[in-house]
């Protein structure tokens, strides 16, 4: 579903953030992306989102080579992915409900479809009772749930998260990871870049470790290499 073939990325500054990366994340898989700060995790995710262009190599998403995707097609690529960030990125002047509905307006869903879908995903992330509340009246964990609801409201085939628990305390982080796991169990492919060692250790999912731009390990197991 997400395949990298010898992908390298150098920024215009000359900094090589990803070097010759190859991996293939299958449909329905749950994969962690780990590595120390500056190792290139976010860059990898930006390459998947087509926010950055690879310097060399090919990226295949859903069986389609997106390396030379026309800019006008990028929105349609992104509709197949839900995206979550460390800093939530909610709109402060919209209620929880409208923040989620917003993502549906953008893809031109009908009002009827929006009214049906939004309460459903809010319930799924455990925010059924907060629909009318504004983001600044929510805890960090609740805000990230809203972001999760927004990410899955259009039923994307994959969910990409860059440090989704980076701003949260350990308990709340667990809640969020639990929801991500639920989403994965419903068939969505999930990729999570994270520093949360304990969670990665306990969830026993596939772990892709990147170090100074190189993929140094790719297997099921814990945060650190035990091989």
């Amino acid at each position, binding site marked *: 579903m997400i395949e990298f073939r010898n992908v390298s990325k150098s920024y215009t500054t000359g900094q090589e953030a990803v070097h010759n990366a190859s991996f293939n994340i299958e449909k329905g898989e749950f994969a962690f992306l780990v590595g120390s700060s500056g190792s290139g995790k976010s860059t990898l995710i930006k390459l998947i*989102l087509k*926010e950055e262009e690879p310097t060399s190599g090919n990226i295949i998403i859903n069986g389609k080579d997106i390396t030379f995707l026309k800019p*006008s097609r990028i*929105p*349609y*690529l*992104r*509709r197949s992915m839900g*995206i979550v960030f460390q800093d939530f*990125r909610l*709109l402060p002047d919209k209620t929880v409900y409208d923040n989620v509905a*917003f*993502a549906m*307006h*953008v*893809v*031109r*869903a*009908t*009002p009827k*479809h929006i009214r049906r879908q939004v309460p459903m995903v809010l319930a799924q992330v455990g925010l059924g009772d907060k629909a009318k509340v504004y983001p600044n009246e929510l805890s960090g964990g609740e805000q990230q749930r809203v972001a999760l609801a*927004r990410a899955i409201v*259009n039923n994307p085939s994959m969910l990409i998260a860059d440090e989704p628990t980076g701003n949260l305390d350990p308990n709340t982080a667990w809640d969020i990871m639990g929801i991500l796991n639920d989403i994965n169990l419903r068939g969505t492919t999930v990729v999570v870049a994270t520093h949360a060692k304990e969670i990665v250790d306990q969830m026993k999912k596939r772990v892709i470790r990147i170090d100074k731009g190189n993929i140094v390990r790719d297997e099921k197991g814990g945060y650190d290499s035990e091989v």
Partner: protein
Amino acid sequence: MKYNSFGYLIGEGFRSVAKQKKMTSASIIIMCATMFIFGAFYLIGENVNFIMGQVESQQGMRVILSDDTTDDEITSLKTKISQIDGVNQVTFYSKEDNLASIKEQLSEYLEILDTYDEDNPFPDAYFVTLTDLNLNDSVQEQILKLDGVEEIVASDDTISSLSSVAHGIQMGTLGLLIILIIISVFIISYTIKLTVYARRKEISIMKYVGATNGFIRGPFIVEGIIIGVISAVITLGIIGLAYNSVINMMLSSVVIQRINITLYSFSDIFARLLIVYVLLGIGIGITGSIISMRKYLKV
């Protein structure tokens, strides 16, 4: 699932106009000023054209025929003149008609014309009016080439000066229009840039959830159109009042009454001006918003 989210876009556009009250009113005021100046020139131009039309139907040239022309030649000349491009009406005035009209003008001194009845010195003539004063020169040229035409008597000066005034006003209005459009586009795009900047976070989120550039542009284009249309309506009201009072002053002035010319009343040109303004407002609004969005639509 495909659905035309027109209502959503329009709602967002109005929301942003309401939020950016200061900048929106500033750009409406400036748009109004530019539209007012343009409107003033437009109205003057329209009236000059209108007057030109009236003058055209009154103004004409006297085509003097040679004394030795036969009746048949006179008749065929009429057909030939009528066929020339730009000729409106051709009226015949015989020697006798011309003498009679002179007698009428000289009623007090009729004795000097006593002998004229036996030996009429006046020529036969055609009075030719034009459909378009700009064709004056070419019509004269072609008539002079015809056999039996001796000379043409016309008040060239009035005609050519009027048509050059009209031409000048047309060019002036066009030049002014271009300058004003550029200024207005610049102002609107600046206003919308502020909105875009205030909503850059929203725009980046929209991109992450898969909004097309067209969709993201929507509310800003609506905002531009709203500013344009509001300005158009306000200017129309102001210029209507101003025009009516100026026109009333002019029509009651002695000069205008003497030369027997009418001017447009505001209701005559209201519809035309409305269309011009609304198209102008919408066009400027759309262009301004597209310009202001360019930077933010990359990535």
